């Protein structure tokens, strides 16, 4: 199975990198967008009996290392 994990900053946490990316998009002439937020993406192959077990294992990984839950949220998707 493959696990795909998105880690993003929580709402209310300032994202100066997102702001800088937005400035750069502006300078390229893009219009009609707002609130650029950046984050991280992880993929990993995982051995588990079923999707629920894989989900639980990856959740533990997120809580213990992949995300800093003081400032970040995570979303897990299991495929395969």
């Amino acid at each position, binding site marked *: 199975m493959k696990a795909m994990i998105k880690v993003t900053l929580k709402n209310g*946490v*300032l994202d*100066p*990198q997102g702001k*800088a990316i937005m400035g750069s998009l502006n300078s390229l002439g893009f219009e009609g967008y707002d609130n650029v937020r950046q984050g991280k993406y992880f993929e990993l192959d995982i051995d588990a009996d079923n999707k629920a077990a894989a989900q639980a294992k990856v959740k533990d990984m997120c809580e*213990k*290392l*992949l995300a*800093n839950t*003081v*400032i970040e949220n995570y979303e897990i998707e299991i495929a395969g």
Partner: protein
Amino acid sequence: MKTTIIQFPGLNRESDMIMALEKVSGAKVKTVWHTETSLPDTDLVVIPGGFSYGDYLRCGAIAARSPVMKAIIDHANKGGKVLGVCNGFQILVETGMLRGALMRNANLKFVCKRVVLSVENDSTFFTSKMTKGDKVACPVAHHDGNYFVDKETLKRLEGDGQIVFRYADGTNPNGSLNDIAGICNAKGNVIGMMPHPENMIEPLHGKIDCRPLFESIAA
């Protein structure tokens, strides 16, 4: 004071820290590699600055999960003293020993300059030779020192005197909430700070403002 410095791959401030501890605090310093699972008999553990594991994932995140950290947490739980400077502070917040997080500097730049710190709590093991409100010059050198914590915890930190240092005179270099430069845990035996006091103790450093901090350790 028996002192142990923890060495992780990628840290680079350990020699400066050892010099300050030996010269000013009169400490006997032992160095311990991050793969150790126990500490020598020690009063104080210092995690110096640098770029452990190349700041991969998040600053301090990988070092915070290394084998020696369990022994450091046990040491702190028994009332042992812990000081983390710069990357050491980032490592301590990643372990959860100190509250909050250190995010990318608000202006996105690596800042390397001298700031002014005000001492906000003069009853810790690192500030006992100072008086609340004292101001000292101190260098900073970091990319991720922007202290963040949720509002409720911030209120508690402020109310309980857990803010140890604040950037003063408009010198906040990174956008830290409430100008926070250094904090301690509820018991006061674990301190973390972004600035580098070990680099402001010799006439050759330009100023010696931070000597009293290291003298506090000796007291």
